[in-house]
């Protein structure tokens, strides 16, 4: 069966890409999963974590596992939009005539690592974010499409906030997921020491091509989702809004704005990828639960009190999921809950 073969191809590609990345990256299974799900869902992923936790290495390794071009931009305060998208330069041909020629910037790559994205000015950030949203850039009046697949992995450091330009909420919304790179456990730390302080023996194989990624992205969208799971997604998004009548207390107290509909889209697409990666042909409520935090944590804007109290947006999401599950069966009879 052709469809079955496509699904098997997806499972195989996903698993092999994951295992290639895990050859180099120790631990961080949830981050690797978020990145891979983001890749197949057709979005861009924001990685947040303290320096030295392997964010950049993860992205580089992923790029090594794919037969795709890779570029990296180290964001600094003096970085200009032209440094990202490219610019028109004057060139002289053999006959001595001068003309403008477009010199492509690093954004014209398949996989783009935007390292420490919050260190560049908003103007420069927006140059990248426009490309992420539209899939094309406009330079000198000419619109140039970006190569497909175009996958941006941006990193930001949450502790060195001085001299940074935090991404505005509207721009954060363009990342399908935000993964938090946490400090490794002691066993993982031991493995990192072992693996990184001796000659590198492991080679990352290229397991997938660009067209294959695009093909598998199309397959993801065919995965069906049952209506009660879809309703649960909507309820989760609604319960992140303080104005919603069934919003939990923690949301009412600490949230200024809840998630946008993009949050719901991200959850469903992520859940579809997750289901396919497990060889399943449908989205389950468990997939939605797994994708809720990465899809919503950067879309919830805390109010001043929430910021002052140090409320974690993951807590808000967890409460929202609980409330949504309760609400979904509230009206049902005891044996049908």
């Amino acid at each position, binding site marked *: *069966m052709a*469809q*079955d073969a496509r*699904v098997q191809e997806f499972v195989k590609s996903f698993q092999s890409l994951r295992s290639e990345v895990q050859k180099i990256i120790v631990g961080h299974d949830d981050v690797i999963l978020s990145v891979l799900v983001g890749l197949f869902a057709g979005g861009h992923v924001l990685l947040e974590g303290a320096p030295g936790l392997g964010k950049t290495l993860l992205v580089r390794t992923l790029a090594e596992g794919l037969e795709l071009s890779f570029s990296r931009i180290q964001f600094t305060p003096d970085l200009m939009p032209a440094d990202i998208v490219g610019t028109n330069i004057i060139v002289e041909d053999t006959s001595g005539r001068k003309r403008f020629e477009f010199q492509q910037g690093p954004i014209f790559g398949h996989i783009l690592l935007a390292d420490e994205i919050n260190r560049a000015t908003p103007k420069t950030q927006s140059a990248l974010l426009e490309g992420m949203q539209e899939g094309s850039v406009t330079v000198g009046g000419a619109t140039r499409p970006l190569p497909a697949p175009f996958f941006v992995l941006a990193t930001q450091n949450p502790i060195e906030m001085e001299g940074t330009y935090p991404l505005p909420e509207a721009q954060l919304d363009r990342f399908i997921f935000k993964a938090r790179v946490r400090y490794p456990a002691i066993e993982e730390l031991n493995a990192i020491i072992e693996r990184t302080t001796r000659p590198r023996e492991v080679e990352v194989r290229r397991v997938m091509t660009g067209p294959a990624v695009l093909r598998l992205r199309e*397959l993801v969208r*065919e*995965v*069906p*989702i*049952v*209506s*009660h*799971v879809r309703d649960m997604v909507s309820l989760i998004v609604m319960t992140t809004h303080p104005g919603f009548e069934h919003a939990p207390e923690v949301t009412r*107290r600490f949230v*200024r704005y809840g998630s946008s509909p993009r949050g719901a889209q991200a959850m469903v697409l992520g859940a579809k990828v997750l289901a396919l990666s497990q060889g*399943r*042909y*449908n*989205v*389950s*409520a*468990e997939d939605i639960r797994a994708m809720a935090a990465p899809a919503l944590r950067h879309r919830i804007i805390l*109010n*001043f*009190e929430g910021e*002052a109290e140090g409320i974690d947006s993951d807590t808000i999401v967890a409460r929202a999921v609980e409330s949504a599950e309760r609400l979904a069966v509230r009206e*049902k*009879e*005891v*044996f*049908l*809950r």
Partner: protein
Amino acid sequence: MVDPTRLDRLVRGVARQVRRRRLEFYGLKGAFYGAVAAVVPLLAKGLVGPAAAAVAVALVALGAAAGALFGLALATPRADVARVADRALGLEDRVATAFEWAARPDRTPLVDLLVADAIAHVERLASAQAVRRVLPGEARLLPLPLLVILVLAVAPAVRLPVNRLPDFAAHSDVEGSPDRTGKLESREQTLAKPDALKAGPLSERDLERASASLVSAGDRPALFKDTALGGQRPDFNSFLKKGDERLKLLEQMDALPDLRSDFTQSEYKMMLEQTKALTAEGLRPDQVPPQKVRELLEEMEQMGRKQTPEAAQTAAQGLRALDRGDQVKALDAMNRSLNTLRRAEEERKGALNLSGGKQGETGRRSSDSGDSKEPGNPEQEDPGGSKGLEPGKGPSDHPQGEATPRLEAKPRDSSLEGDPRSGKKDSIETNTYGRAARVPSRLPVGSAFEQYQRMMEEAIAREQVPRDYQPQVKDYFRALSEK
């Protein structure tokens, strides 16, 4: 397309389980209420007769049957049943999705795979119990009415009170004396005998009647002889006089005591009394027991939550200061919170047009010239009043402290230095000629202020302003509005 009969069979099986569980659940419920109803005929066994037990059993059975029928009549939507099956059998929403998408026109090619996959999963499952048993709360209580039924069924009939006149006809039949006059005569003879009471059995009514006849008007002093009233004579004049005084008092509406002004009726005044008791002992702020201060602050916070959030916030500040060991600040916060509570109390009373309210207070102050504080009036002796309180020093005229001195500066500091240039200088005339257009100001200051004040109130209501800063923000706007 894969035949989804197996899935259908699974869903039907689960639906059967749901119905069975419902039958148990609602049947037990009905049996409980039937059993409660069955107690009634057994209580009235005397009236109902030997059929009472049968009626009771019938009621229990009827209740259970009605409950079970109700349970069976409830709808079992397939989508819900499929969801229950998925959840109970760990099928990860396969069955529900397959059912829903198999019937949709926009089905994707993956749906066929999904149906096949769901069937494969269902086949692997042993016949499992998908719907767990849930017992209603009434099931635990069911033994109680059943026990009562059993006891009542075995026990003799309960004698019910009968409110009706004695059956004289029956009585006369028993005595067998048809001559009524002869009966009356014999009764008179019985009463005439002095030892009649001793001879016959005494009823309570007879005893009461006897004691009433003994205590006549002349015997009352004898009754009160051992009490203080024993030596007093009835003084009717003084009673009348006091009555007149009471009537006059009733005419003076203003002098009537306001029961609501009783300090036990006002939480604020209770709080004030407790604060006074705490600070009236001449203790320095650091000598006041912190536990008492904490108790008072917690009470104020609770009270403020109900009435005045501002007072609750101030009390919370005090609690935090107490946690830090800063008792002076805690006492200060306590006084401020008390002030806020007092203001709220005055406003509330003012709104109700009660004495002690803001309007009444204003009226009284306007009628009195100057400082009209009456000594001994607890309302006016408020230690946390408008004058403020310095801990250990008593009332202060500067509750917010002394004003910060201005930085020293000369007015010429801002002027340019150097000598003016001599000679004719070019200049541009900036005067405008003609009448100014008579248009209203684009931004009336008054409405702009109200607008900002509304925004401030909304921001506070939405808790965008941190709790600790809210009083400052409010004070700022209050100061502006006073100007």
